[in-house]
C-alpha cells in the first residue's frame, strides 16, 4: 500500500514531495557506531584534510541510508523496498558546528506488476551527491 501525500494517482512522471534531512558531526558519529564504519575521514577533520578532502565528509552509505528512509516512507515501510541503488558522485561535506542539508526528491519512472520504480535525486548545498539513484518498491 503506497500513499503519497494524499494523492491517489501514481503514474509515470509523478513527482513526489521533497524532503530535507540535516546532517551534522554528531549524526556522522552516530552512523559510524550504528554501521561499524569508523573511517576517520567521517569524524576527524585533521585526518580528512591530510588525505586531500575539503573537510569531514559524510559516509556515502549514510547519505544512502537517509535517502532509503525517503524510499521506505513512500513505500509505506522498509519491508516493501525491493531494490535500491546509487552511485556516489560527490561527498556531503560536514563542517564542524554546522548542519548541512540533504535534499531528496523522486519521480516515478515505471509502474508495472505491483511495482513502482523511482528515480531519486539527492543534493547537498545545491550539489548533486548521488547519481543513478533508483529504487523499486512493492505497491
Amino acid at each position, binding site marked *: 500500500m503506497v500513499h503519497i501525500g494524499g494523492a491517489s494517482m501514481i503514474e509515470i512522471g509523478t513527482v513526489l514531495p521533497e524532503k530535507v534531512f540535516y546532517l551534522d558531526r554528531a549524526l556522522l558519529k552516530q552512523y559510524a557506531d550504528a554501521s561499524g564504519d569508523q573511517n576517520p575521514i567521517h569524524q576527524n577533520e585533521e585526518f580528512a584534510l591530510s588525505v586531500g578532502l575539503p573537510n569531514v565528509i559524510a559516509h556515502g552509505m549514510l547519505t544512502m541510508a537517509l535517502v*532509503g528512509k525517503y524510499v521506505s516512507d513512500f513505500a509505506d515501510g522498509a519491508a516493501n*523496498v525491493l531494490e535500491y541503488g546509487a552511485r556516489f558522485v560527490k561527498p556531503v561535506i560536514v563542517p564542524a558546528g554546522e548542519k548541512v542539508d540533504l535534499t531528496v526528491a523522486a519521480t516515478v519512472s515505471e509502474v508495472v506488476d505491483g511495482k513502482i520504480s523511482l528515480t531519486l535525486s539527492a543534493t547537498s548545498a545545491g550539489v548533486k551527491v548521488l547519481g543513478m539513484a533508483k529504487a523499486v518498491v512493492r505497491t
Partner: protein
Amino acid sequence: MLNPDSVGRTFAGTDSITISQSEIDSFCAVIGESDTQVAPPTFTIRITLSQFEAFLTQPDVGLDWSRLVHGDQKFEIFSPVKAGDVLTCDATIESYRVAAGNEIVSVRSDLHRAGAVVVSAWSTLVVRA
C-alpha cells in the same frame, strides 16, 4: 594491487551472524525511522562491508583498504531482515580493472537465511591512485 587471479573467486563467510533488535534500533535511530520491525534497506551494509574487508585484504588478494572509496552500491532485497535472523554471507569478486591508476573492484555479496538468499548487494570499490 589486487591479485588479478582473484577475479571470480567466491569467499564464504565462516561464522553465522545473528541480527539483534538493538543493532536495528541503532541504525533506525540515525535515519529517524520509528518502525523497527524490519531492518532499513541499507542495514546489511553493516555486515557486508566488514566481510568485504576481511576477504579483500587477505594477503593472496591484496587490496589496499586504506585508500578505498565507495563508488556505487546496490541492494536487491528478497526478504526483509529482522531481529533474530541468523545469516551467512558470501562474497564474489565480479570484476577488476585499473583506470588512471585507480583500481576499480566490483564485489557482490549474498546474505542467506536457512539456505535462501535474503539480500544480494553489489558494491563498486575504488582504490585511489
